[in-house]
């Protein structure tokens, strides 16, 4: 078997796969990639509900938005900007999907909601919101889970390693991922749940895919994030080292620079011959 035949066999194999399997793939794709933030109904989660997408936008627009929403926003597309503004400039992560997969997704969303009417939006407004009232224990456990004082049941990394938060009981966290102080305000319980269980962000996916955070832990974390969000205006913010470290560093340097000359006051400061050399130069001029 030479190289050419191998390549053509592989090519045929992939073509076959992508054309015949995409129909049932759409659902799986939606569940794994989109469901964390989107619903197929018109109900709003983190992102907008996707019913009627096929009516509102062209297939081409849909594909380019999913591939890179930010690129579209930057290119000045009016629709894209509108959505971005509406959802508090929450960035939708780019999805690395093939053309066939995007087609499958579009078709799935279309088929999942064949009869969507304008009444949908009213339904949402009428839906009764169940108030989320966590207990103090939940908040405390959530705090411990966040800071890593208590490890996750499935041994996932603690949140603090990537996320920072303005909360006096916790020292400053990492700067890799979003600052989560007002996350509850922005995303509410459903949104946070979606992110924690759905793992839409690539780095989170890598970290937690094999170390899923349990349902109970998710609730406890959200309870803690709610507390943080509510208490954020009462925090002193002293645990953030951003400026403190710099200020203390400068102050320490000044103090040390003051002490060293006292310690080494009697040191040899210049060449023994300095005076002679200077006089030599003076007389030469």
């Amino acid at each position: 078997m030479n190289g050419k035949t191998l390549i053509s066999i592989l090519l045929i194999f992939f073509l076959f796969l992508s054309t015949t399997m995409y129909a049932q793939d759409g659902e799986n794709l939606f569940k794994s990639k989109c469901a964390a933030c989107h619903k197929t109904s018109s109900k709003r989660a983190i992102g907008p509900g996707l019913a009627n997408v096929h009516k509102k936008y062209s297939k081409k627009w849909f594909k380019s938005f999913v591939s890179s929403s930010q690129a579209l926003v930057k290119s000045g597309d009016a629709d894209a900007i509108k959505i971005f503004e509406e959802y508090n400039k929450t960035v939708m992560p780019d999805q690395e999907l093939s053309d066939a997969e995007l087609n499958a997704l579009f078709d799935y969303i279309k088929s999942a909601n064949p009869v969507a009417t304008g009444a949908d939006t009213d339904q949402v407004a009428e839906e009764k919101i169940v108030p989320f009232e966590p207990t103090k224990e939940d908040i405390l456990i959530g705090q411990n889970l966040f800071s890593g004082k208590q490890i996750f049941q499935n041994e996932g990394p603690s949140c603090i390693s990537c996320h920072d938060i303005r909360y006096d009981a916790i020292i400053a966290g990492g700067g890799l991922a979003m600052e989560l102080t007002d996350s509850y305000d922005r995303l509410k319980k459903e949104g946070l749940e979606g992110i924690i269980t759905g793992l839409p962000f690539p780095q989170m996916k890598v970290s937690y895919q094999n170390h899923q955070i349990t349902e109970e832990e998710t609730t406890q974390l959200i309870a803690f994030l709610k507390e943080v969000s509510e208490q954020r205006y009462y925090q002193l913010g002293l645990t953030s080292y951003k400026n403190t470290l710099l200020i203390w560093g400068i102050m320490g340097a000044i103090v040390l620079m003051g002490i060293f000359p006292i310690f080494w006051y009697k040191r040899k400061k210049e060449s023994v011959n300095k005076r002679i050399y200077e006089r030599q130069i003076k007389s030469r001029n």
Partner: protein
Amino acid sequence: MDVRSQISMVFHLDKCIGCHTCSIACKNIWTDRKGAEYMWWNNVETKPGTGYPTKWEDQEIYKGGWEKNMGKVRLKGSGKAKSLLNIFHNPHLPVIDDYYEPFTYKYLNLIESPEEDTQVTARPVSMITGKPIDIKMGPNWDDDLSGTPDFARNDPNFKNLSAGEQEAMFQLERMAMFYLPRICNHCLNPACVGACPSRAIYKRGEDGIVLINQNVCRAWRMCVSACPYKKSYYNWETGKSEKCILCYPRLESGQAPACMHSCVGRIRYLGVMLYDASQIEAVAASDDEDLIKRQLDMILDPFDPKVIASAKKNGIADSTLKAAQDSPTYKFVKEWGMALPLHPEFRTMPMLFYVPPLLPVMASLTSNDVEAQKGTLNPISKFWERATKYDATIDTIFGTVDDARMPLKYLANLFTNGDEELMKITLKKLMAVRLHRRDVTVGDLNKEMVAQSLEEVGLDTEMADAIYYLTSLAKFDDRFVIPAAHREQAIEMSEFTGDRKGSAGFGFTEHPARGL
């Protein structure tokens, strides 16, 4: 008693003519390399003067040597705690300007320049930067009292001398000087060894030569600041410190060190001395006034059977013992008590001894009858119209020693830690030998007076003749009694001599190793 052998040296300052041949011989052999241009393992200084590096004797500047602290001897500028504090910046280190910026001249300009309207010159260029410089300083910039206001008047040895005494030294008619050649003293209690954080410096067991292992040296430069004689130098090219090695490769093959071999005035003597190493710590910590006496007491009599037995127990070879018995340095230092260590107050117990100079002491100024002199000259002849004359004649025994041109206190600050009596006795010994020899060869002196002078300093005619012989007539083999090296025995401690012999000539100095 822990008897060890030490190669020691005596420099006879009365014989030094300040020609710097020793410095050049040393430079040619050892320090004519990149990074070593400014080093002078051997240098000759004019005294009074500030020396090289400038004011090296002033330990308030450089913090070299040892000091007595709570009954114990401790390094003045380094030591464990101090070294740790100063590990990234040693504040007592001399800078290149304290030595001098080494320079050469662009001699090739003189040969290769095309024809021009103006005279071609060989500009001075720095040997560090390679750029043209204005020469500001050299290793003997104050030679023969040049630049006196800047150098000689700042001599650190003027401490304890009153302003009047100092001023008197610089009156034109009284002005006197002598030369002080210096090499590494190969001390018994070396401060450089004590200060090295890498333990790269060691005192060789068989002959006491202090060496720096170039493979172990880590460029801390604590030895440079610790050595009170500033005889350890940092090579900025190799990043290692270097110092006088007493030409050990020459010594091992029975030759005198280059500086000594080439000495025009034949001022240098070299020989073995035996000493009791168990006393080093106690002697180094002794009181100021006992320092010299106790150091000399540590040096053992090589004829004493007890010393010989003890030396053999320590593995000192018979040939070394014989060399110790014939040693000219033992005679000068111990038998005759004429040689003194330089700056014993640094407490390193230097093993280079100096016979102090008599000449600047002996000659005096007497009044001169100008009128009588005029009568003997015709009107055209020129004559010295000063009412004083340089006078080296003697009217009373030792009269001139007491009335010296160079204050005894100054010499005492150099060689006896301020002990003027000891300095006076040493000078009187030199004077007594001269009186004796003048009596023998000229016979114009009062015999009684000569005998009295010898008796007063504890010499007899036989000793005086021996001193005269070793001072004036001594041949090469009298001046340098070099013991057989017995490297084979020293090597035996660390490797099999057969291997060493078999691999000689192939990877002998740098062992070839497996791998890249």
